[in-house]
Each structure stands twice: as structure tokens, then as C-alpha cells.
């Protein structure tokens, strides 16, 4: 990643995220009279400013967890607690989200895309542009401010998506398989960049992924979930030593997680 100047916002103190607790949360979808269970009695706690990676088989309910954490849905039972307060239904100013498809608005430039979240939350136009510009520079896309999303590669678009989420200066960041649609090399690069960004801004993060290696590289803890209906199988802590992909510790952690998922090597 290219070197960047310190943005004018005081980062570390300002939006260090609070602790996030999932307490006996179950959720099921009801449609046309059929009930589809998604989560079954999930419980775990994320310490403040930590990155929690949620791994599990496809379609097991990981995205549901994110939706509940964001306040987009109310859990069928149980509750989610953010920084001491129960998560309520509705938009939440402290949360930023990024998805697998960056979902950039094709009619806006890159800069306008990053700025629009700030605008809808009430920032003045000039202020929004300034902040957006800073975050774009942070993700290394300062030269592409006036480009349109159709002109960007997948990796670049994803960076814009993350910049957009971070520009809101969220205290909690929810990432739903953000690098899944990107090629392997770009994915490795983006993981490193994300790590650096998170160290700088320190929100509390829930990072959903199906790539276990990615979870170890980025996370402070791994929540392993079962197939649908998703239960928490195990919570595996990760420390700095494990992140080096060339190390034995990494391989050990990988094996442990995969075994938990039921995949033997």
C-alpha cells in the first residue's frame, strides 16, 4: 500500500469501538407459512476494538448475524448488546458496512460515492468531500476520485466500498465477505491493507468470511459456526504470532479451525 499522510482526524482515541455481545440469539425467517431457522442460540462476546472473524459453511446464517448486528432485523429471541446498549431496530449511526458486491452507485463518481454516506447523515457538502478525499487517499485511490465505478477493477471498487464505510468513522464495522469476489492475489493485498486500516482506526469489527486462512490473517478471534441452523461451535483466539502465513503457528491454527469445521486434511 502506498504511504499516506496522517489524516486530520484524531483516529485512535476517537472511534475505538465498544464491546459487542451476542447473547443467546436465535433467528428464523418466516415466509409463506414456512419457518426457516438461521441461527440457533448463538452466544459470544467481542472485546472493544477487536476483530472477530466469523467462519462457517456457505449459507449457514453468517450474513443473518450481520443483519442483526446492524439493526436491520430484530432477533427472534435473545439480544445483541453494543457498548452496553441493546441493539435496536433501525439505522444506527455508529455502524459501517461493506458487502461482497461493493454496491457503488454507478451514477456517482468515486468521490461522490464515498461522500454520500456522510451527506445522508447530515454533513455539509464541502466537509463530506474533504473527509471522503482523505479516506480515498488512505486506501490508495486518491488519483481516482473523479473516475466512475464502471472504470474500476474489482479490487479497486472494493477498496472504495471500504473507504465509504470507514469514512463514516464507525465504531463498529461489519464486513460481509468483502473480498470473496476478488481474485486471490488482490485478496491477499486487500487483507494486508485492511489490517493496517483497522489498526489505525480501531473499530470493533465483525468480519464474515468462508476463507479460514483469511480469518486467521485478519482476526483477533475466530467464531466457528456450524451449518444451518448455525450454532457457535467454538471460539478460537488468534494472536499476532499466528498471522504469519509461513509460520508453523499459522498452520496449526488453520488445522485446528478446519477440524472444528469438520474438514480433515
Amino acid at each position, binding site marked *: 500500500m502506498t504511504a499516506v499522510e496522517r489524516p486530520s482526524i484524531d483516529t485512535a482515541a476517537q472511534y475505538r469501538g465498544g464491546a459487542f455481545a451476542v447473547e443467546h440469539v436465535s433467528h428464523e425467517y*418466516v*415466509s*409463506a*407459512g414456512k419457518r426457516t431457522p438461521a441461527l440457533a442460540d448463538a452466544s459470544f462476546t467481542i472485546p472493544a476494538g477487536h476483530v472477530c472473524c466469523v467462519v462457517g459453511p456457505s449459507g449457514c446464517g453468517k450474513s443473518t448475524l450481520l443483519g442483526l448486528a446492524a439493526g436491520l432485523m430484530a432477533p427472534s429471541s435473545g439480544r445483541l448488546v453494543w457498548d452496553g446498549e441493546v441493539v435496536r431496530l433501525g439505522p444506527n449511526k455508529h455502524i459501517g458496512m461493506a458487502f461482497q458486491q461493493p454496491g457503488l452507485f454507478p451514477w456517482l463518481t468515486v468521490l461522490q460515492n464515498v461522500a454520500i454516506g456522510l451527506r445522508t447523515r447530515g454533513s455539509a457538502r464541502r466537509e463530506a468531500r474533504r473527509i471522503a478525499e482523505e479516506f480515498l487517499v488512505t486506501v490508495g485511490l486518491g488519483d481516482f476520485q473523479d473516475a466512475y465505478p464502471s472504470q474500476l477493477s474489482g479490487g479497486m471498487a472494493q477498496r472504495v466500498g471500504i473507504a465509504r464505510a470507514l469514512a463514516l468513522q464507525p465504531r463498529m464495522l461489519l464486513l460481509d465477505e468483502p473480498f470473496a469476489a476478488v481474485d486471490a492475489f488482490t485478496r491477499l493485498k486487500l487483507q494486508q491493507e485492511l489490517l493496517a486500516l483497522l489498526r489505525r482506526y480501531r473499530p470493533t469489527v465483525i468480519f464474515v468470511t468462508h476463507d479460514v486462512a483469511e480469518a486467521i490473517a485478519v482476526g483477533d478471534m475466530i467464531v466457528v459456526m456450524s451449518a444451518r441452523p448455525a450454532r457457535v461451535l467454538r471460539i478460537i483466539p488468534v494472536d499476532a504470532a499466528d498471522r504469519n502465513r509461513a509460520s508453523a503457528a499459522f498452520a496449526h491454527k488453520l488445522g485446528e479451525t478446519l477440524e472444528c469445521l469438520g474438514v480433515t486434511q
Partner: protein
Amino acid sequence: MRAQRSPRAQAWLLGCAGVLVALAIWTLLAQWLATGGGVINRLPPPWRVLRDLVAYASGELWRDLLFSLRVFTIGWVLGATSATLVGLTLGRVPMLGNVLIPVIEAIRPVSSIAWVPLSIVWFGFGLTSKVFLVGLAVFLVVIVYAIDGSRRIPHDLERTATMLGMSGWQRFRALVLPGTLTEVLIGSRVALMAGWGTVIVAELVAADSGLGAHLIAVQQSYNVPAVMATMLCFALTGFLMNAAFARIEQRLMPWRHDVDRP
């Protein structure tokens, strides 16, 4: 948590509610205007229209309908057939195609309605004139489908045909013709409404026979309920034809989904 009705039941209920609301608004408007409300001083309530519809149906409707349908069918068949032939030719003979297709593209946007006065000069007010107009309308719609269909043979099918050593005629029969006919069938359904709409305009102008003629007649005798009843007949016929044709298309080509439905 609220009990969830099945989506279909919900759609039905809401749809019926919508229709009832529309009818209620209509009745209220008719009431209000009857007491000298506004510009539209003759708006009969729904039941009057229904009564006239029933009266028409037990009387001359079928004769008029037959006339209109006759005009429509002949025009539609002629239009679709000629469009298929011309489309095939223009699509497969590049020299003719490159020269004439731009001309057709230029004429297409000009609806066949623009040809009504010319048609009257040429053919007068009779059957020929109306059939010409309907045929023209259908032709202009189907021709695009015919040209597209005759040209759009998937590349790998062409290669397979070459590999199998098919002659020009065999290739035509096995590849070009079915592809073209499929597209023409779809285009012919799209052309249904264009053709049926042209029938009404032609009959409104000619005013000699058919639903359109009846429409003019009741308009001239200021019989608003009858006018609305006739409009309903016209719409209903169009709807039924469309539904019938869609079903036929579904049976013949089950792999195509109906592009018209939401």
C-alpha cells in the same frame, strides 16, 4: 408475530381491493358530476355501463365482433407471413439486407396509423383498406423479429453444420427456418395488440362495420354508456386474444418465458 397469509392470497385480496376502490371512485365521480360538477358532464356509473354491455351482448355485439375479427385475422396473417418472407430474404441475402434494412428501420417508427388517409385514397373505406392497415402494422412489428431470427444462428451450431457437411438447403431447413419461425411467433404475439389497435382506428375512420363502426354510431347518438360498453368489449377481446396466444406460445415453446408479464 403477525400471521402470514400466503403471498398469492395476499395478492388476490389486495388486487380485488384495488378494483373495488377504483369502481367506488368511478361511482362517486359519476354521482358528483351528474349534479353539474365539471367538464365531463356525462359519466355514467358502472352499473349503467354493465347494463348496456349486457344489452349489446344479447344483440349486435357478435355480428360487429365477427366483422372486426375478420379484418384483424386476415390482416394479421398476411402481415406476419409477408414479414417472415421479407425478413428471411433480407436477413440471409447480405446485399439486399444492407441496402434495404436501413430503409425499413427508418419507416418503422412511423406507425401504420399515418397511412390511414393514403389507404383511403387507394382503397376507399372497405375491407381491403382496413386489412392493408392492419397488415402493415403487423408487418412493421414482425419484420424485426424475422430479420433477427434469420440472422441469429448460434455460432457453434453453424460450425456443427459445416462439420457435418450440410448443404445450403439442408442448413436452411435445419437451422435458419426453425430459428426464424420461433422469433416470428414471438413477434406475432407482440404484434397482436398493435394489429388490434389498428383495427379500431381503421374502423373508426371507415365507420362501415365492426366494433369501431358501432363505437362511432353510439358516439354520434351521445350514448355514453354504450360508448364505454363498446370500449370494454374491445379491451376484453384484446385481452382474451393475448391470453390465448400466450398460452399457445407457452405450449409450443416452453423454454421461453413470457417477457410481457411482470
